[in-house]
């Protein structure tokens, strides 16, 4: 069961996350449950890129939050390096959490508006004593450089940045702890295609360089196809289809997957021949 060969990094087993539904305003009565995640199992290997797709409300974010123990789960197990995260105490979790980092859709709400970019990135480094005090500044510069921001931006505040730049800051902060797994929850959904391309390039380059595992949540199938080697399709709290990206896109089995694929508006696939070898003919 908790077999960790095959470079298995994390294994979620039969995760269920239910939220109680209350009726009444003054006297609250539990009338049932929202089965946000209803028995999902997923293995993530080192360096693997897995896409999680499905319509709004199907449970993608809740699943991600559940396996990172950011959301209390109803039942199920999350194995990481031979231990079940669900059995861990909160203070143990805090130590282990540096290995799992998450980047959200709206970087604005996840960045403290009163902190400068420099201190936003330095904070986790200090908290987990990742580098010596004397090396702190150098490490922040290195991280800024990795995500393509200049060191002159160190003393600016989040509101002084564009959406794409803020997402770069959030990625720099997530990478500060040298995680093994990066969960990206709709990281490019709020961005223009041009900026989306920049962030996708950044995530996929870093993923390869650092051998990160990536759980990439999105409702944009074209993006998932581009960045992930495997895809899990969620519908109403369950994974209805899982497999290699090419199989899912070329031979979808589940009717819901087919509907989803049919719904992507694609610009004409065959626009004219250009000199660039990295653009499709």
């Amino acid at each position: 069961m908790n077999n960790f060969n095959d470079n298995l990094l994390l294994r979620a087993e039969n995760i269920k996350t239910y939220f109680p539904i209350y009726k009444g305003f003054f006297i609250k009565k539990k009338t049932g449950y929202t089965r946000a995640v209803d028995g999902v199992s997923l293995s993530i290997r080192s360096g693997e890129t897995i896409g999680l797709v499905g319509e709004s409300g199907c449970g993608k974010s809740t699943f991600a939050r559940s396996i990172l123990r950011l959301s209390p789960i109803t039942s199920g197990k999350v194995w990481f390096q031979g231990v079940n995260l669900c059995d861990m105490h909160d203070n143990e979790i805090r130590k282990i959490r540096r290995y799992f980092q998450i980047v959200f859709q709206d970087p604005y709400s996840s960045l403290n508006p009163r902190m400068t970019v420099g201190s936003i990135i330095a904070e986790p480094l200090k908290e987990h004593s990742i580098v010596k005090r004397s090396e702190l500044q150098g490490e922040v510069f290195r991280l800024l450089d990795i995500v393509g921001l200049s060191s002159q931006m160190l003393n600016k505040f989040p509101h002084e940045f564009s959406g794409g730049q803020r997402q770069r800051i959030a990625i720099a902060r997530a990478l500060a702890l040298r995680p093994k797994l990066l969960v990206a929850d709709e990281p490019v959904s709020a961005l223009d295609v041009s900026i989306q391309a920049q962030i996708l390039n950044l995530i996929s380059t870093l993923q390869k360089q650092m051998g990160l595992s990536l759980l990439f949540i999105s409702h944009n199938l074209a993006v998932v196809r581009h960045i992930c080697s495997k895809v899990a399709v969620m519908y109403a709290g369950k994974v209805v289809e899982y497999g290699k990206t090419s199989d899912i896109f070329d031979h979808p089995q589940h009717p819901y997957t087919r509907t989803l694929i049919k719904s992507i508006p694609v610009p004409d696939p065959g626009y004219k021949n250009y000199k660039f070898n990295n653009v499709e003919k």
Partner: protein
Amino acid sequence: MALLDVENLTLGFYSEKNKKWSKVLNDVNFSLYENEFLGIVGESGSGKTILANSILNLIPKQGKIVSGSILFKDRDILKLTEDQIRKVRGKDIAIIFQDPMSSLHPLLTVKDQIVETLQAHRLIKKSDAVEIAMNLLRDVKIDRPELVLNKYPFMLSGGIRQRVMIAISISCGPEIVIADEPTTALDVTVQRDILALIKGFKKNLNFSLMLVSHDLGVIWENTDRVVVMYCGRIMESGKTEDVLRNPLHPYTFGLLSSIPRKTGKKLEILKGIRGSIPSLHDFPEHICPFLPRCDFATEKCNRPLLLEQVDRDRFVACFNKGAFK
């Protein structure tokens, strides 16, 4: 003949903070023809919403028309009085906003909002208006119209709300519908249904649609012609098929090469566009605005840009058209 002609439209915005005027729309020229679907595409901040709103003369108070006209049925919309424009809005030209929540009245039921719009433009009894409202909801494929009719906007899902907005927009038989990112906030499957719905109406209702979107896929699938905007200017315009298949402007090319596509071999790095769109008060005015981000710039580009006609119904604003080919 064109139904709507936007000619040399330049709109200035004053910034208190910078004590400075900037051109949020700069010499915009295009036509909307009868019964066509026209797309307006560009990154966010390129001026699409400002342009869409100008057509209804909805100009924020810090804005001032510097020059130009918007001709609709031989009248310049920009010269109409507030009374005259109110008769046009909602009746001849309807608008659907990105966030239906902000344009639906939060304290009125769906029924009241539709009835109010109908009665503002037509002389009809309340009971007839309710009847029409019911049929409109059926037209926008709402399953149980009688249930939705008595609901408040916040009680509805995003998709249903947008259907209600569409019902209101078509209620007075408009000649032009302007849809500003009508599906950006919605799921792909819902988005597809809503766009199919709008397209379906085109057949029976004969209106022209101006579809504002930053999604080239949506533009490709739903429009006949397209206008590509950047920094308040038109970079390129023409038949959608020509512009997206055979872009002549490096900006259009950059947008297209930002999209992950299906390829035999996996694309590693998307070509895309470097940098990002400047904020309004940094829009370059006396040089090609795309110059700081353009891979094909030459010294030629250091001068004021002009939109040139290169073919019948094909316009491009670039000194090195098609340089990337």
